[in-house]
């Protein structure tokens, strides 16, 4: 997995590092009376927004001097010379027909087929080509499919990889709950996958905690409220 070494890597918030290791501690140890205005959901569009910070190579057809943005500098643009830019800029330039997008090196039929076979063989999660593979595939294939060879096959392959990983995730959450384990560690999960189960899983763990506290009489024996 390549990590970008440009100026953009400094803006990664610490919370995104959690995508690599998901440690789910039994909610018993935390206070979890969810207050009404605290939602435990993250919108998929927010995940996509975070994915747009990844860099991708483009070949512009205009020229521009180096521009200095808050997040970092974007190198001088010369027609015909490849330059690394964040995805949000790449998509914007592509829509204005000012550049050509070069697909990332993992976005190839053979590589994705290998990843898919490995994912199906292993029982745990294999390392992903990019921490935002799902979003990048969708964005790049929607806006720049003419620059990417064999776009449909790539779409199918990525969907297969996604389905396999989600099935493994569901299996592991099911065994976590049914055996009432206290701690789980899942490596190589991406933020989008975590997001699919986040809300339901946390709510269920809350409910399980409260139902389990019924088993201990006296610890939660409250007074009757005076209505």
């Amino acid at each position: 997995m390549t990590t970008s070494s440009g100026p953009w890597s400094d803006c990664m918030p610490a919370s995104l590092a959690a995508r690599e290791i998901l440690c789910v501690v039994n909610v018993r140890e935390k206070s979890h009376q969810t207050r009404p205005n605290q939602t435990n959901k993250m919108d998929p569009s927010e995940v996509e927004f975070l994915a747009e910070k990844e860099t991708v190579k483009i070949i512009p057809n205009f020229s521009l001097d180096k521009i200095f943005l808050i997040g970092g500098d974007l190198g001088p643009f010369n027609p015909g010379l490849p330059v690394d830019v964040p995805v949000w800029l790449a998509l914007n330039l592509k829509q204005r027909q000012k550049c050509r997008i070069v697909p990332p090196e993992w976005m190839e039929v053979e590589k994705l087929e290998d990843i898919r076979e490995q994912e199906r063989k292993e029982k745990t999660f294999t390392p992903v080509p990019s921490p935002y593979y799902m979003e990048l595939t969708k964005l790049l294939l929607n806006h720049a499919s003419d620059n990417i060879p064999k776009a449909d096959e790539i779409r199918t392959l990525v969907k297969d990889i996604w389905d396999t990983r989600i099935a493994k995730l569901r299996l592991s959450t099911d065994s976590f709950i049914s055996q009432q384990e206290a701690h789980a560690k899942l490596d190589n999960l991406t933020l989008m996958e975590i997001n699919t189960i986040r809300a339901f899983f946390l709510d269920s763990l809350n409910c399980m905690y409260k139902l389990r506290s019924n088993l201990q009489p006296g610890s939660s024996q409250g007074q009757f409220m005076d209505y």
Partner: protein
Amino acid sequence: MNMQSYFPVPPGVGMEENFLSLDDILLSHERLPVRSDCAFPRLGFLEKSADTQDIAEGTKMELPLWLTKGLYEKKRKVVSVELPKVYREGWRTVFNADPNVVDLHKMGPYYYSLGSQLLHFDSPENPDIAQTLLQTFIGRFRRTMDSSQNAYNEDTSAVVERLDSLEKGASCLM
């Protein structure tokens, strides 16, 4: 990103109820079979089945949960609560055998919450009831999770109909 200005109070699961939660308010309307342990003079009009002036000792009635919780006291025997059908031995074995088969919506849409409230009333079967509640929830977890993520790729309304209101809230399948 939730920009709503109205945040509904969630139901309190477990032995507490949230005072402001609509689900808990509706829950407290559920009726429990109750036996009165002392006479209630001049309250005969509450008991529709018999036309007596007083409610004699030992009358079996159905009272809502809010009234029962208010009247129940361990030391002074005012009322004694019997378990509703769904929480008794027979149904408990059904739940332990296969929780997925049961239609929890029909059993009273507030199966888990009412069961937790029943634990206030010091029945000798309390630990078994609590254990059954937990095991039922765990047993049904897989089905509920799959249907909330549209994993079945088919119409899930038949599954949703059979869910308790707690499960519906967690999976946002309301």
